[in-house]
């Protein structure tokens, strides 16, 4: 049995107006199934950041269709897109984006802020999420007291706390030294092993090679996908 598609992109293009217009995406087809983990790799300027924004519903494509958990993004109002992000998509950013004056517990709990979860319940779930990333004992600490690797673990916990259908990690190791970065990748692989669907965007090909599936992007197109045979058959759908 094939798992349900969490993410479906068909013929997605994105053109930024200007003279000349910038064609960031030139027809991307991509399907990510539940429980998958993949890297979207490409050098800077390849369009991978635009792809992340389109997948994350932070931006709408110029043409083509994007479906997240079966919902067509083009048909959703801005409010419904916000709801989609609140309940079904988790983000991990290169710069962590933690709130410095709040405890780790509340930083992680903020992942559920716009899902209308009461604060006590948020904290309970945040405690569990912090435990999953190995920071259960630092719940009352503040981000400024942490190393970069620890901060990224907090950000990952925040992305996971609402049990989203898909986690998008944008250069999660970009601000970390190689050893710390490797431990973050280990953590993501562990989370994948326990069932999370994770998409990692990176320019680091070595990192991309450690993922079960690797999609290469260049000049706004997918130039290689080790899960899809030339005839379109899915080779690696499940872990």
């Amino acid at each position: 049995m094939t798992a349900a598609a969490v993410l479906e992109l068909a013929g997605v293009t994105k053109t930024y107006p200007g003279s000349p217009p910038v064609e960031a995406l030139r027809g991307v087809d991509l399907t990510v199934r539940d429980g998958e983990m993949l890297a979207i790799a490409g050098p800077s300027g390849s369009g991978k950041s635009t792809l992340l924004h389109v997948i994350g519903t932070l931006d709408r494509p110029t043409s083509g269709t994007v479906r997240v958990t079966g919902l067509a993004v083009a048909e959703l109002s801005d409010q419904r897109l916000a709801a989609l992000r609140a309940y079904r998509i988790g983000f991990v950013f290169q710069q962590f984006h933690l709130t410095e004056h709040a405890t780790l517990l509340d930083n992680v709990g903020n992942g559920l802020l716009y899902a209308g979860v009461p604060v006590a319940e948020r904290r309970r779930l945040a405690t569990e999420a912090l435990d999953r990333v190995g920071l259960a004992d630092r719940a009352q600490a503040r981000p400024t007291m942490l190393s970069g690797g620890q901060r990224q673990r907090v950000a990952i916990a925040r992305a996971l706390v609402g049990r989203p259908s898909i986690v998008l990690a944008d250069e999660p190791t970009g601000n970390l030294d190689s050893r710390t970065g490797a431990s973050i990748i280990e953590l993501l692989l562990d989370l994948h092993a326990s069932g999370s669907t994770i998409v990692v965007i990176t320019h680091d090909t070595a990192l991309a090679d450690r993922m079960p599936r690797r999609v290469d992007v260049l000049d706004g197109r997918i130039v290689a996908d080790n899960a899809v045979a030339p005839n379109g058959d899915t080779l690696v759908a499940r872990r």
Partner: protein
Amino acid sequence: MNGNGGLPPSRLRPADLFRVATAGLRTRRLRAGLSALGIAIGVAALVAVLGLSASSSAGLLAQIDRLGTNLLTATSGSSITGDAAKMPVAAASMIGRIPPVTAVAQTGETGQSVYRTPLIPKIQTGGISVKAASIGLPQTVGTRVVSGRYLNAATERQPVAVLGAQAAKQLGFGQVTGGQKVWIGNHWFYLAGILAADPLAPEIDSSVLVGFPAAEKYLDFDGHPGELYVRAVVDQVQAVQGVLAATANPESPSEITVSQPSAALVARAQASSTLTSLFLGLGAVALLVGGVGVANIMVISVLERRGEIGLRRALGSTRAHIRVQFLGEALLLSVLGGAAGVLFGAAATWIYAATRGWAVVVPPLAWAGGLAASLVIGGVAGLLPAIRAARMPPTEALRTL
């Protein structure tokens, strides 16, 4: 899956909205405090001005209450020919026979001047008039003696003088010690007492009073009263006022001016001075400038917090959530400033009123108006920055970091 794809709407609980709206203030305390200060100063000025004018009115009305509103004065004006008119010598006793009249006192202008010594040039009168006064004057007018004693049946025949408050200050007498004297019309008059200032009869303050018999004996006074002070039964004041002129001078009532001194004080208590309006205007300007400060801070804050806005959008906030967060922050900032301003203003009123012995009155218009004004200003100041924050595309907000 149902029609909405099983997706509940994105929502922010009211308690969380409060938490989110205060977060910006809690993390930037100095900045929040300074921008709230602008509003606070404006509101404090408004509250203090309104509070002080209300308290001073209340103080004045309380004073009028103590002094009584049943005092009437009858003053001889000028005759048709323009000469100084004279009241009959018997005017006071005639008025005393009007049934509702409870007390009558009189003074008469002697035309003399007062000096500390005979060596002072005659021209330096100091604007102090020397009046003959009847024995009942302080009781009738409602003033008291602050030092020494007033004229009595014995001293009104002797060269003895009592000073009004202003006259005593001008002549340099603080209190009666015995043996002090003043020079009036080629005679030494011994100082018997000093009167307290009298708001109902301020003309007595700048006078030196001597007895009627003494004035006639030493100062060539003709005995005609210039001013009569009349106390009447409270509910008959109007009636007495109507007949006073004709009774005081039956031959030419038109030469008599009758007035009720408390009426002028009441009018003063109720009039808002131009100074009050000026300060209110200044307060309003301060409030406006405070509002501009809040708007300024909010615009800067939105620019600085692009990353936060982007993160919140990624976490699932709608534009409306962002808008209401920043609007809420501006409102909180401004209302906190407004509340502090009301407290400052009320404290200023309280301190000033306490030193003057007035009742503290902070009218509801002042504090409710101050809070309402700060609410409106916060809303107006926060609206544009909030809309800008909400319109910021999440990708742009995340990119610029």
